[in-house]
């Protein structure tokens, strides 16, 4: 990263030695290290003394380097940082003075390695173009990344809930439920891939230099691992499988299912597809909540019970809110890249304090729905075990409050938030299974 010369010299004072490099008369770079003094006000560094023959000729262009690592025995090293500055050599005896005219540097405590590497992606593509190569990864890993397979828990949880409630109503049918699960996963994969395509076309993912494994898209297009046409084929294929399975299920279990399937497809289309692009309008959360809450849960229930149920709608509300919060927290590290391309998510629109406060309110609301449901007789008392997941919400709240502007420190927080949805959802399902077992 470019540094102002005075800033570079000020930073140099935190290092233990300097390395002076120049191009010698044979055309080879020559380097020699020594102690130094620095005067940031004058952007001046004096290095030496050096033995006369190890001293650069006066007037020779120099690169002066300050480098630091901290060895970690048995692991490697960390605390990487360095400063390079350039200027002409002034030689006085064995001492070399350089007034910096330009400088660069990197300090991983300021610019985390992942972001530093992400900024190099355009350079990587230039290099691949120059050597006629392409980045490689096995087909399995490309599919894993492109589909964002681990996020399918967002689909599995509500459809499992729908199946569990059908079981509590003595209507569970594993075969039809499994087909519904496959259809739901296919819609979800289609949505994930479509979202990547639209974020690639809009430039949102390219503008995001702080992606994490949980946010910033799959990056398969930005890294050149797959082409847009391959992603489009995957997207169309996934939606095609979902629609085909939807018709099979509707024909076999009731045409009312078409309404649920249509709602799911419409929500997944309007999420990121122009001109709707609801995620860019700050409406991604309600769309996500509806799609991965009541719609999926009703689908999982209807294929078994062949009817709708308001209980399913109510029971799915806590996980609907929690999955919307997964999107919401994931948008926090993405907000600069999103803002750059006009994708005005809630963390783009709101100040940090409001984003954090709204998270707390939403988590409390999600968990409050369970005892309210029990008190009103909608839910079994066994579903109160869902409250055991609440500490994960507290951990996420504290994490986003304390690390709001640190994308990589947010990674374990994002993970905890995803865990909150998964654990709460599975506990809710378990509550229904226990209620059914002890009924």
């Amino acid at each position, binding site marked *: 990263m470019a540094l102002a010369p005075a800033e570079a010299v000020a930073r140099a004072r935190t290092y*233990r*030695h300097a*390395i002076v*490099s*120049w*191009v*010698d008369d*044979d*055309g*080879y*770079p*020559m*380097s*020699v*290290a*020594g102690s130094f003094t620095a005067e940031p006000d004058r952007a001046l560094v004096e290095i*030496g*003394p*050096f*033995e006369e*023959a*190890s001293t650069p000729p006066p007037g020779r*262009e*120099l*690169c002066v*380097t300050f*480098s*630091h*690592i*901290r*060895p*970690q025995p*048995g*692991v*490697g*090293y960390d605390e*990487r940082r*360095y400063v*390079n500055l*350039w200027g002409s050599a002034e030689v006085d005896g*064995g001492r070399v003075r350089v007034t910096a005219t330009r400088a660069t540097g990197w300090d991983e405590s300021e610019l985390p390695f*992942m972001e530093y*590497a992400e900024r*190099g*992606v355009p*350079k*990587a593509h*230039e*290099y*691949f173009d*120059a*050597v006629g*190569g392409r*980045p*490689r*990864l096995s087909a399995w*890993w490309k599919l894993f*990344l492109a589909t964002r397979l681990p996020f399918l828990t967002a689909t599995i949880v509500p459809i499992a809930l729908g199946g569990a409630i059908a079981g509590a109503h003595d209507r569970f049918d594993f075969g039809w439920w499994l087909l519904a699960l496959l259809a739901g996963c296919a819609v979800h994969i289609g949505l994930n891939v479509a979202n990547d395509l639209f974020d690639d076309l809009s430039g949102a993912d390219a503008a995001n230099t702080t992606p994490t*494994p949980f946010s910033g898209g799959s990056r398969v297009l930005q*890294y050149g691992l797959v082409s847009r046409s391959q992603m489009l084929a995957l997207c169309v294929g996934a939606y095609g499988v979902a629609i085909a399975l939807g018709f099979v299920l509707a024909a076999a279990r009731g045409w009312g299912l078409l309404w649920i399937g249509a709602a799911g497809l419409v929500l997944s289309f309007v999420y990121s597809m122009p001109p709707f692009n609801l995620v860019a309008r700050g409406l991604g959360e309600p769309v996500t909540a509806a799609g991965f809450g009541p719609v999926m849960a009703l689908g999982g229930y209807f294929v078994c019970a062949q009817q709708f149920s308001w209980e399913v709608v109510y029971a799915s509300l806590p996980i609907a809110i929690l999955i919307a919060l997964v999107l919401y927290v994931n948008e926090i590290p993405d907000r600069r890249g999103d803002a750059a391309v006009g994708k005005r998510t809630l963390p783009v629109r709101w100040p940090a304090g409001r984003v954090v406060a709204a998270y707390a309110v939403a988590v409390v609301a999600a968990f409050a729905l369970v005892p309210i449901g029990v008190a009103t007789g909608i839910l079994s008392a066994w579903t109160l075990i869902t409250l055991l997941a609440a500490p994960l919400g507290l951990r996420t709240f504290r994490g986003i409050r304390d690390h709001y502007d640190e994308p990589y420190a947010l990674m374990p927080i994002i993970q905890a938030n995803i865990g909150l949805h998964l654990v709460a959802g599975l506990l809710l399902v378990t509550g229904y299974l226990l209620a059914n077992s002890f009924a």
Partner: protein
Amino acid sequence: MSTTSSAGYGEPMPAQPGVLPPEVAALLDVALVGELTVVDHDGRPITYPLIPLYDGRHVFMTSAVLFSRKLRHIKANPKVSVALTDPVGVPAEPFARATIQGDARVVDDDLHAGWEALLPLWRAKEPAIDAFLKKRFGIPLFFERSIIEITPRRALYWAEGRTDETPVVYELVGAG
């Protein structure tokens, strides 16, 4: 081939052609960081801290395609140097400093897997590389890497790191 001295330096020390003297090799063997200096398109030096590896014949460094500018410089001008200077990053006993000048070649015919031939040398210095490699799907471009293969031509050695004293110079004529 015999060793020769360079004007201005002390008497050259005998060295086996193509092989760095043991005291310089000993520094390379423990160095967690070395400063690779290349010459840019304007003829100016530019230095990159990198982990140096040594197989007894060549000094190797690797570079992810994400940080490929140095590779372009080397392809345009293969003359490079590697300096071992940091008492912390080069934990040798007794401490010494060295600079190796040589000719570099960028090996990029298999960016995905070619560099893995250096894993045994790399692992010895940075055992965590194996853990990173298991997660290569997460940072795939970091593991698309070129090898920088450096054939040493000359080595300068400052005992105790005293660069205010005359270095021992090894002219490795015919190296490689």
